[in-house]
């Protein structure tokens, strides 16, 4: 039966260093949730804590409402998939996959049948007698996946499972992981530092920073409506501009920042607080001709060619920003231009100051 997972008020320490601070996370039954963050943010610690290899110094780990904090790792019924596969080098593929069943006392014939079935699902039926050393990276990770799935665990944990594979295989494997997770209807936690990977396979993503969850939401919301500057930066809003409202009339809001004035339409932007930070991707600032009536005046400096468009570094009254220019209009470095905001590629964040 598919189970839900709740972390409530989890703290963890390595010696005196606190690595997790009062962390909460709820994962619904059957969901695939990614923990996303740079190394050292606490995502792997969180995973190891759920697996039972680390003890929290505070808080509870609830599996379907039951506190498993005191349950030993080998009794937690959790499948783990590691970055470096962690196959048993001295056992054949079939013995690797059958190991968990053997521990559960599943008898030989039934075990063999279930191992064969699972190897079939990951496309490795022909490899059951091989030793792990004779497999490619992708095949090894499939064996690891089969080994974790065959015990029908209440929870499946992935620790950067695709980091050792090459780019093409990574994309194929993540689709495969998602399909298997759905097909078996197993709740899963997926740790990665790769934003694209996390967003592409997860129902929800928790972006972690310094032992806390910065924002926990669907990939779509995270990508478009980051809740704070850290998440905004993480999902590619490179330019941050501090602004304040100077006047409101009808749906139009006049804003000012470092002497530059412009207006935002609340019908497009949503409600605008009195003081805020505007986050913009490079695509959120479009370069137009200097003689246009709208937009922030700018001097273009460095130009980079991206194939579908140009990126410019632009000096504006608001500081140096990255902007996007059309492929068919070639501005030269040093040209005067104007920058127009593209609302879909911008976000409004709480004021940082």
């Amino acid at each position: 039966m598919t189970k839900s997972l709740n972390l409530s008020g989890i703290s963890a320490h390595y010696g005196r260093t606190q690595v997790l601070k009062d962390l909460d996370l709820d994962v619904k039954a059957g969901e695939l949730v990614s923990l996303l963050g740079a190394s050292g943010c606490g995502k792997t610690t969180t995973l190891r804590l759920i697996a039972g290899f680390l003890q929290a110094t505070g808080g509870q780990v609830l599996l379907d409402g039951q506190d498993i904090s005191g349950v030993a790792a080998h009794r937690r019924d959790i499948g783990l998939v590691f970055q470096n596969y962690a196959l048993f080098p001295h056992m054949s593929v079939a013995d690797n996959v059958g190991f968990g069943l053997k521990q559960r006392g599943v008898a030989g014939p039934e075990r063999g049948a279930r191992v064969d079935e699972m190897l079939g699902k990951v496309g490795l039926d022909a490899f059951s007698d091989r030793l792990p050393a004779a497999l490619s990276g992708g095949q090894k990770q499939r064996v690891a996946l089969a080994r974790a799935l065959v015990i029908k665990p209440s929870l499946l944990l992935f620790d950067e499972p695709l980091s050792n594979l090459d780019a093409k295989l990574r994309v194929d494997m993540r689709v495969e992981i998602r399909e298997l997770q759905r097909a078996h209807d197993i709740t899963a936690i997926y740790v990665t530092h790769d934003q694209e990977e996390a967003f592409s396979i997860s129902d929800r993503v928790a972006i972690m920073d310094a032992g806390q969850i910065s924002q926990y939401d669907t990939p779509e919301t995270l990508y478009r409506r980051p809740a704070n500057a850290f998440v905004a930066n993480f999902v590619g809003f490179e330019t941050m501009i501090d602004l304040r409202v100077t006047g409101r009339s009808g749906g139009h809001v006049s804003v000012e920042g470092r002497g530059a004035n412009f207006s935002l339409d609340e019908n497009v932007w949503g409600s605008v607080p009195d003081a805020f930070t505007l986050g913009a991707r490079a695509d959120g600032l479009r370069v137009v001709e200097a003689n246009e009536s709208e937009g922030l005046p700018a001097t273009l400096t460095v130009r980079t060619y991206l194939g579908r468009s140009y990126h410019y570094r632009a000096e504006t009254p608001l500081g140096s920003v990255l902007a996007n220019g059309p492929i068919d209009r070639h501005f030269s470095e040093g040209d005067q231009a104007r920058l127009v905001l593209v609302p879909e590629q911008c976000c409004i964040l709480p004021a940082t100051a």
Partner: protein
Amino acid sequence: MRRYSPILAISAIAVFIFLLGPLVIVAAASVSNTEFLAFPPQGFSLRWFQNIFDVSAFGDTFLISLQIAVLSVFLSLLIGVPAAYAMSRFGFALPKALASFFVLPILVPQIVFGFSLLSAISVDFDLPVIPTLLIGHTIIVLPYSIRVVGASLATFDFSAEEAAISLGCPPVKAFFTIVLPNIRGGILAAFILAFITSLNNVPVSLFLTGPGVSTLPIQMLTYVENFFDPTVAALSVLLMVLTVLVMALVEKTLGLGYFVR
């Protein structure tokens, strides 16, 4: 055809002569048909080989040496494998000096070590010779057990052990079913290296052997002090053959890479 410079060739030959020369001399002297050690050998006789078996002390002390070697190596592995495991697995949480601490028995001059064991164990506790020898040898071979098993563990990926635990295997069982089979080669290599070390040891045994109870190397020393005939040379040849056989066995099963690595 590759051509080697004459200097390289000459130095290589010199090294071989330096390494093998003494062994050849001993082997040649062992078959000398004289009452004293002679090189070049005069005549040919195997009677000194026969004499090894006539001197009962050699047989007796060889058995003691064998017994001490097997037991002390076994004990050193019993201590060394868990110690090496703990240092590889939890090394980050242990003091750095610990690894150095375990090689101390190699670093401390063995003659000093033998003497301190004599005063500490034999005199203060009045332990019989065999247990004293056993303790001494266990300590001197312990560094080999820890280092060789540790080298083997260094290449082992402990996440496999965690994988086993997550699959429902209790930690102790995971050690025996997952870790141990993968460091078997290292343990065997440690066994052989420690075994040879114990079998050859003189400085520590010298202090700990007592009246009537001795090890083979000490017995050989004693014999040479009293008789200068080629018996010891003959015995040395037998020991060399034994060592070569053991090494050949290791080479066949593991490859000597275990020692060179």
